[in-house]
């Protein structure tokens, strides 16, 4: 089966889509969450006037910008890739799927990219509050963008609000509102956005831990650690809740995906939750399985005994439903990928959440601590196990180390989440409507796809090295010292305030606060 797949015309296009999209999604969640977190920090600066908030804004803002640059440029390709490699898909779904994409560009991308320019270059051109509004606009833009693209993806997972036109044979939109508000879209949005915040929060905690354990930039990093930990715990909890909701929806809409996620070959009731399995895909059973009885029934249907359909029965049912028309024969996704992808997603995501929860407890507020464990705003927090007992030096070191490493966990979880949800939908591009094999561009040769895939992969790998090293450089450097110009933002739009340094004629030749 795998040999056949390697020769199929859609295989290369799928690899290219997978590589470029998963890569793009390394940057997207950080962009979404850091935009809001930086906006929050800048709001704190504007409201309190405390310098640590401004320094934090500048520090995280710089990392945010290094990251968003990659998110933006790798996103350009996504707008074209459907037409380039998936022209039959585009012809078939454009009437439905194109609309949210166009909305995303017209509403969200313009918003995001225009106001990011104003924010980057506007420190000495915009009054404080107008400048602050710009970063909030960026944050709104990122979230809107996520909504539209997730609504589009949800339509591929669970097509609604459309009909197949008899004459043209393509899908046509009948209810756009339904496409935007169906439960799949809402649940996917909630799950993805909260996961994005978990990602950004873990990023913040990791870098703050790096500096705190070296006792550097303590005031800024302590604030960042706290903001990161709280965000991590809240978003981690919401990731779990929204993920549970999404899974229940998927049990209704794509039973095959969820059965594959559990390597549940036969329909069982009560169904167990699999912790570990080694199976034989051709034979359709597991050889080794470690299971928690009844838990899967609970996850799927909120009780401990309901039956959950297995892979073999679902495959049979899909064959009966579709084989006459499509003749695909096998309606199972790649089961090991679905099974392990699901586990790695949950495992890495929830480890990150757990580390956040532990961290929040260890660094809790003063009134939960005995006086000798309390620390001031410019001291590294002491990790307090109980009210009076501090964590020993070795476990403390281990905690800081784990807090640093947790930066990577949500990124890994995000990647596997998408690999699971997209590969778990196979063999469909649009579930139950359009097979992936019927979606590729007939006029594009394998050679062309190989060429473009190789170039993208090489370029992306090179850019990953560049970006990672830049992030590391600026993360290590820590927050900047403030200048007079930072403390005295302009009072008029355009930067021609009557007060502040460089007012009046001198302003003509004053260097810009930021330049490329």
């Amino acid at each position, binding site marked *: 089966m795998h040999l056949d797949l390697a020769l199929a015309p859609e295989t290369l296009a799928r690899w290219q889509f997978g590589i470029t999209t998963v890569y793009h999604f390394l940057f997207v969640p950080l962009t979404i969450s850091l935009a809001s977190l930086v906006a929050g920090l800048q709001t704190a600066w504007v409201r309190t006037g405390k310098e640590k908030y401004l320094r934090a804004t500048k520090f995280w803002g710089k990392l945010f910008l290094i990251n968003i640059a990659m998110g933006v*440029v790798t996103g350009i390709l996504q707008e*074209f890739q459907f037409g380039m490699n998936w022209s039959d898909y585009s012809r078939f779904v454009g009437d439905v799927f194109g609309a949210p994409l166009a909305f995303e560009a017209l509403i969200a991308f313009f918003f995001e990219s225009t106001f990011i320019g104003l924010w980057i270059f506007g420190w000495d051109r915009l009054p404080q509050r107008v400048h602050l509004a710009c970063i909030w606009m960026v944050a709104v833009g990122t979230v809107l963008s996520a909504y539209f693209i997730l609504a589009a993806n949800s339509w591929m997972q669970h097509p609604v609000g459309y009909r197949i036109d008899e004459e043209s044979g393509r899908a046509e939109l009948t209810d756009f509102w339904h496409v935007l508000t169906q439960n799949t879209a809402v649940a996917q949005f909630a799950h993805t956005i909260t996961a994005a915040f978990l990602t950004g929060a873990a990023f913040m905690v990791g870098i703050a831990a790096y500096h705190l354990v070296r006792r550097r930039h303590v005031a800024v990093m302590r604030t960042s650690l706290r903001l990161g930990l709280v965000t991590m715990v809240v978003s981690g909890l919401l990731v779990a809740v929204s993920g549970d909701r999404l899974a229940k929806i998927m049990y209704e809409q794509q039973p095959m995906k969820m059965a594959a996620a559990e390597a549940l070959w036969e329909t069982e009731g009560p169904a167990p939750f699999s912790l570990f399995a080694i199976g034989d895909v051709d034979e359709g059973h597991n050889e080794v399985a470690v299971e928690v009885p009844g838990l899967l029934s609970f996850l799927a249907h909120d009780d401990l005994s309901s039956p959950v359909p297995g892979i073999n029965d679902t495959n049979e049912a899909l064959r009966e439903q579709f084989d006459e028309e499509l003749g695909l024969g096998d309606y199972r996704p790649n089961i090991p990928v679905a099974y392990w992808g699901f586990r790695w997603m949950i495992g890495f995501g929830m480890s990150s959440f757990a580390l956040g929860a532990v961290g929040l407890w260890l660094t809790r507020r003063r009134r939960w601590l005995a006086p000798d464990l309390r620390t001031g705003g410019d001291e590294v927090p002491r990790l307090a196990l109980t009210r009076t007992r501090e964590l020993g030096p070795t476990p403390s070191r281990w905690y800081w180390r784990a807090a640093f490493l947790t930066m990577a966990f949500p990124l890994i979880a995000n990647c596997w989440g998408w690999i699971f949800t997209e590969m778990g939908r196979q063999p469909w591009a649009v579930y139950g409507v359009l097979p992936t094999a019927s979606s590729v561009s007939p006029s594009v040769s394998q050679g062309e796809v190989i060429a473009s895939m190789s170039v993208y992969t090489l370029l992306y790998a090179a850019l990953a090295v560049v970006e990672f090293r830049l992030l590391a450089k600026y993360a290590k450097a820590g927050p900047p010292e403030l200048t007079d110009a930072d403390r005295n933002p302009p009072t008029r739009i355009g930067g021609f305030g009557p007060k502040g340094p460089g007012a009046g004629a001198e302003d003509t030749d004053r260097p810009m606060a930021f330049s490329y």
Partner: protein
Amino acid sequence: MDLPTLWFVVIAVLWTGYFFLEGFDFGVGVLTKLLARDRAERRVLVNTIGPVWDGNEVWLLAAAGGTFAAFPDWYATLFSGFYLPLLVILLSLIVRGVAFEYRAKRPEERWQRNWEHAIFWCSALPAFLWGVAFANLVRGVPIGPDKEYAGGLPDLLSPYALLGGVVTLTLFTLHGTVFTALKTVGPIRARARRLATGLGVLVVVLATGFLGWTQADGGGPASLVALGVAVAGLSASLVANGRGREGWAFAFSGIAIVAVVAQLFLSLFPDVMPSSLRPEWSLTVAGAASSPYTLTIMTWCAVIATPLVLLYQGWTYWVFRKRIGTQHIAPDPHAAPGHAAPHGLAPPAPPTAPAPVLSAGAGVGPAATAHAVADAGAASGAGAVPGADAGGVGCPGPDAHGTRPEPAAGAGSGSG
């Protein structure tokens, strides 16, 4: 006007916005090798578009997304058919965006030089290839009965298409040059004006040839008018540039771009992608369009979003209306945060001259906002025109600027 035709116009408007705005971005990128003499000047050039290039590029995404939604067949055939040129364009745009953002993030000479090469090549290549793509689009390519592209790469490289590429490359470079003259002070501004004169003559000749060829091939009365406007716009831009009216020179080169795109789309209509094999295999506006329901929704979106976009993008140009020169470049952008540059590293402040540009610019500010709201086609022009007026009215002009002591190049660029 029926909905598919309306959407054909909307797509044309989105491409027009893209070429108008990113046209000068590309041009400025090309000028980093053509006009700038040292790193400080290259940085001045890049910073004239710094706050806006990202927003400008979204016009392309909007055009692509709009085509996907409104004409799925057009989107599918065009992008799968022009696979390799489009691949090069996308790779260029990716590298170019990163180059803008990352160039100043490290102090090493090699790092900065490499990104500067990238800015030049990744601006010049798409500027050329968009022309090749549009020439092919208008002239027609081999499209089979299955709506799929049936040709190969050589089919896309006809003399006509290559001429189209040369025209867009030079036209965008000219547009970028008059933009540079409008947005900078100091010697670079004077040189930009001189370059614009020579370049302008070349563009008039090339564009007249290309548009005339297009017109002879499949134009009508309307596209003939567009051709006339394009040539007149270019000539007017030349004249305005010669007289030192930089705002007008930019506005006219912008009008020329609008007219060129209009001519191409008018020649295209009522096809969206003519087939060179058989006319009945061509993709047409009516045949490739989405359902009326989708087009209605899209129309609402465009009607509400587009004016807002013009409004806030126009506002951005107004916020950053100030001209920049080498003295305005932040002295030490790569200084690692935490050890910020001591003030001694800042370029020596030149003797302060009165600031006519500044005061005039501020004086006509509200008018500029009004322009930005009213003048849809020239969002950037609106923000920029007052500066030009200031140059013509209150400012002694480039020669006077030339006498102003410029900071030494080395100091101006910091250690970068």
